[in-house]
């Protein structure tokens, strides 16, 4: 017989994805903020999967995401990402639903560069 502590060592988590779904109160805008933590040996990488959905009125199908952004998280933000994996703060949620979603949409419409939009999305992690 072995202890449960020993049993737990036989497995190792090499990928975690937490998907926070933020739906606006009027239910016409939905942001999916997925945060992925991947481990290869002792190397840890972080990625943000950002998707924006909009619809005209509550009850309509969401359809396809109007914007999908995959953002590699800067190593300097790894500590912040580790914290965000444990949940977005109110400020981060506000940023994701507001500026991040708006800039993602603006980039999609050619109003700003996609890089600028990705930076705004990644900045979500900086927020308190």
């Amino acid at each position: 017989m072995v202890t449960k502590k020993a049993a737990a060592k036989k497995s190792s988590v090499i990928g975690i994805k937490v998907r926070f779904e933020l739906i606006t109160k009027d239910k016409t805008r939905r942001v999916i903020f997925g945060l992925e933590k991947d481990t290869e040996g002792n190397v840890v990488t972080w990625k943000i999967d950002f998707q924006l959905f909009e619809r005209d009125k509550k009850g309509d199908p969401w359809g396809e995401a109007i914007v999908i952004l995959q953002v590699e998280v800067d190593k300097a933000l790894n500590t912040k990402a580790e914290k965000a994996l444990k949940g977005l703060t109110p400020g981060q949620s506000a940023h994701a639903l507001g500026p991040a979603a708006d800039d993602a949409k603006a980039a999609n419409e050619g109003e700003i560069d996609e890089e600028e939009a990705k930076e705004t999305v990644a900045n979500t992690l900086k927020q308190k």
Partner: protein
Amino acid sequence: MKFLAPLAVHLLFLILFVGTSPICLGQTQDNTVSLESCQGINFEREGYQVRSSRIDDPFDFLPWVRIRQRRAAAQIASLVNGKPFQYSTARDQAREIIEKENFLPDTSEVRVKLRLELLSVENCSNRSLDLVYRVYSTQIMPVLSSLPETRTTERRFPQEAAGMNRVDVPTQKPFQLTPLAGYDSTRKLAVGARLEMTPRRLWKLPFNSLFLEAQGSSESVKVSAAITGSNDSDGWLAHSEWLVNYSYFSIPTGQGNLKGGDLSAQFTGVSKALASGNLTFRFGGLLEGGNRQNELVNLRLAENTIPNSGFVSLKVYAGLASRLRHNVISASYGLEVGSVRRSEQAGWRKHVGDIRHELWYPIGDHRILDLESRLTIGAIQVPGKIPLPERFFGGNHEELFLPGDSWQIRANPVIRAIPGSGLYRTEAADGGEKFFSYNLTAAYSVWRKPLMPSEIVKDADFNAELQNAIDVVTGNLQNYHVTKDAHYQELLKEQLPAVSTSLDVLKQAVQNAQQARPGQAENQFAECLRAINTASRRTRNAIQATDVGQQYGSVRALLSPSVEVDENRLAKVMTCVNDLNTTLAIDQGISNASARLNTVRENMERLFGMIDQAQAEHEAKAEMAFTRRTLNTLFNEVNLYSVSPVLIFDVARVGSGREGFGSWRYGPGAGLRFEIASTAHFTTGYAWNVKPKPGEGNGTFFFSLGVRDLFR
């Protein structure tokens, strides 16, 4: 003081059960496994081979989940099984397959939604490994999770408590057929079914479900048909339901049957969480009309009682419900004012008080001690006339004050030792005018399989993730509460339009200055115009936003609270423009425009700083309190199936107005409960009728059976 006796029994059961717990706690499991570690290995570089792969989802007993799980598992298996391990396939492509299957499809009604995916490697031996993909999804209706009726649902149908039945998938059929069965020695074996239909659209009517239920035996008949609608909102009335119901019954007393048919229309409302998230308030009203008949032999009729009659009645009801970590308690009161047909005055007034308490406590891993107790009191005042079946008839048969399942107010004395509705003879006449009943059911799961695998439930990271995911939703709610603050509203109304105009004026001033100084400070001009454009875009998005949360994010981005996110857009504009103006040795147009913008910015900062964030946080936490407790129960305490010995103890009294509550009747008993989440629940046992009255038996066997949806 007499009412304290049943409560003492309640405590006695608790002590007895807790006393047996060390037997279970002392049990150990043989967890012999390979001790080869999977930690810290780059499996691709080290040349590992994938031995097998699987997807774990605790809700895979649901057909539509199982279909997706199998489909995704087959695709992943063909991708990785028996092949060299590669992160790109085992992790990235497999994750895409799972994402595409979408294990928690769209719904438009639920705002608390989370999904966690974990990829683990196991059994890393001989350069081979097993891949395990774990997917956990849930969505919760915040207010309804406080209700005792929901607690029963969690135990029997955890997928409903987790919101997994409220999905829009083609394989989710719009109807459910549930067989029903029950037995006691008076009612005999009664079998039947319940059909629930939830069409996507019910013409243009404000209804979303149809119910048909019928159950019959050689001695009894119960038929009902209902059409219901509901709505959830973010206001004080968090949930509302309406229902039109027809029902017919013929229930045995052992001395003939009571019969009736009625049509009713009702409305029920549930408030948002009150008292720091510890209480919900329910209320409603019902209008009913129909008829009541009886076939009793040796009938002793009170003077104010009509044996058979049509009637109309109005019911009003209210109640409070609370859910703590391991307790649900509710108190309900109902008042019925009724009149027999062709009578203009109120014939009777019926008062019913019903208190439910359910305590569940894990003693050992997922071994739950359940104590359900219920105290019900009723009284009838008869200034006119009352149909006999409207008086109180008690026994194993439970009468509910309202039709439907969502709010169950008991309206008669229940004692499981007296079959049918055989408890009705008082000293004065048949049918009681007052009653008291207390029912205790204690169960302890001796054999069970947890809904969530134990290794996950005990995993500190998983539990942290779960709590944190709820924190995200709470934080999001907090933002919404902030937007209701009067200072924020003033900021929107008075300052936001002004900042838009000020930015336009400043942009024009900077452009004018640039045109007047060709070739001078080009980079600074470009940087300032970019800063102004970004601030203008945030402002425009805030003004045009259709949603308060989206608007709040944009407003916040203009101000200093967002400084860490590199936003703080108005301050950035001010810094840039001031630097530019210094370089230009003061341009009066820029000076005037920037001063105007700065005034607006300072006003915005002042108002934003006055927002009561603490109050918003408090309100959000209160709103999510029930949800947090429900999720903790669902993930840590609910079993996929369980077998539990059951002890019961009932006390009931029925009396006429003159003799008070009548004599004490006791009904201890024992039995077995078998519950398979989502599939069936079955309770059987025997209850003794202590000191039976003439014409009554010494007790009765009873069982009830519910089988979940034959079409799944």
